[in-house]
């Protein structure tokens, strides 16, 4: 095997395994033919086109969206756990997200942005997955995983009220219906966190399924059948 061949093969790993089984030999042949004699490296244009092509076949968009969704969901569960673990600090509950006494503004803002990002990603994740997995039985599992994600989004933390809610105003958060409640360390949130990780793994497995290249595989077997009389 020449160095060029080895490097081309490395580049072809941009494509998923199921696609390579079907196409890698053919593409390697084309790559080698397209490279000028004596070259040791594939051209930059070819390299770039293979990386982009591989990402496209792998469905880079749905990967990014869904993994971000899972990561934010897991981070959210972790956040609520930490929130609940600040016992016996008073926790501010209102229209705004809860926060603990002495929580830094940066953490609070990050929590809010995270919640917003998760909400905004929810529908795109579902749609991108459905589009990618259309015509495959895996579309059902994707929908199921998505519903599981929705279910995991509800905090299970147990807040103990200590006083009736009142309208309270603060400088940076405006006015909100507020009540001081004592949190009970919510180990359930850790289970939810683990649930998010499991969901992420399940989504990885689902997305690694081959997308249907109906005509490619069918035509391959047909061409093979015709070749042998």
């Amino acid at each position, binding site marked *: 095997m020449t160095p060029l061949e080895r490097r081309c093969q490395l580049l072809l790993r941009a494509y998923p395994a199921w696609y390579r089984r079907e196409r890698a030999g053919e593409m390697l*042949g*084309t790559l080698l*033919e397209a490279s000028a004699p004596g070259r040791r490296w594939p051209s930059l244009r070819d390299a770039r086109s293979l990386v*982009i092509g591989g990402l496209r076949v792998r469905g880079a968009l749905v990967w990014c969206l869904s993994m971000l969704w899972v990561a934010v969901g897991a981070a959210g569960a972790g956040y609520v756990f930490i929130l609940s673990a600040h016992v016996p600090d008073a926790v501010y509950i209102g229209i705004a997200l809860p926060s603990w006494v002495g929580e830094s503004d940066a953490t609070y803002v990050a929590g809010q942005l995270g919640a917003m990002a998760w909400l905004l990603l929810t529908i795109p994740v579902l749609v991108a997955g459905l589009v990618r997995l259309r015509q495959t039985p895996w579309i059902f599992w994707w929908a199921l995983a998505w519903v599981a994600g929705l279910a995991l989004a509800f905090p299970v933390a147990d807040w103990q009220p200590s006083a009736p809610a009142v309208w309270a105003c603060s400088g940076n958060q405006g006015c909100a219906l507020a009540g001081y409640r004592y949190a009970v360390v919510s180990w359930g949130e850790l289970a939810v966190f683990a649930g998010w990780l499991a969901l992420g793994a399940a989504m990885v497995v689902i997305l690694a399924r081959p997308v249907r290249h109906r*005509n*490619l595989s069918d035509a*391959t077997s047909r*061409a093979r059948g015709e*070749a042998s009389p």
Partner: protein
Amino acid sequence: MREPTYFVLASLLDGPLHGYAIIQRTTELSGGRVRLATGTLYTALDRLTAEGNVELVREEIVNGRARRSYGLTSSGADALRTEAARMAEAARLVTDRARRVKAGGTARKASPA
């Protein structure tokens, strides 16, 4: 239809070709304007095959590797002809006008406005 797609289909007009031959032929037909990179070619072939415009017609083994030849389907040929007619129509808008100006430019200038 984008230009590379048009030239890939056009390269198959004279019969089925394999990957590298399609790259060469598109470069030739487009006067060097369309130079397909390998990844781009196969992305296009995947799409065109899925759309039914191109089909796999032959598979042989060369140097221990699969070499597949692709051909134009009848719907691919139709799509190509439709696109060619559309572009010819669009080109006529400009070329006819240029010819008219060249032929009748002086006459028009002389005619009363």
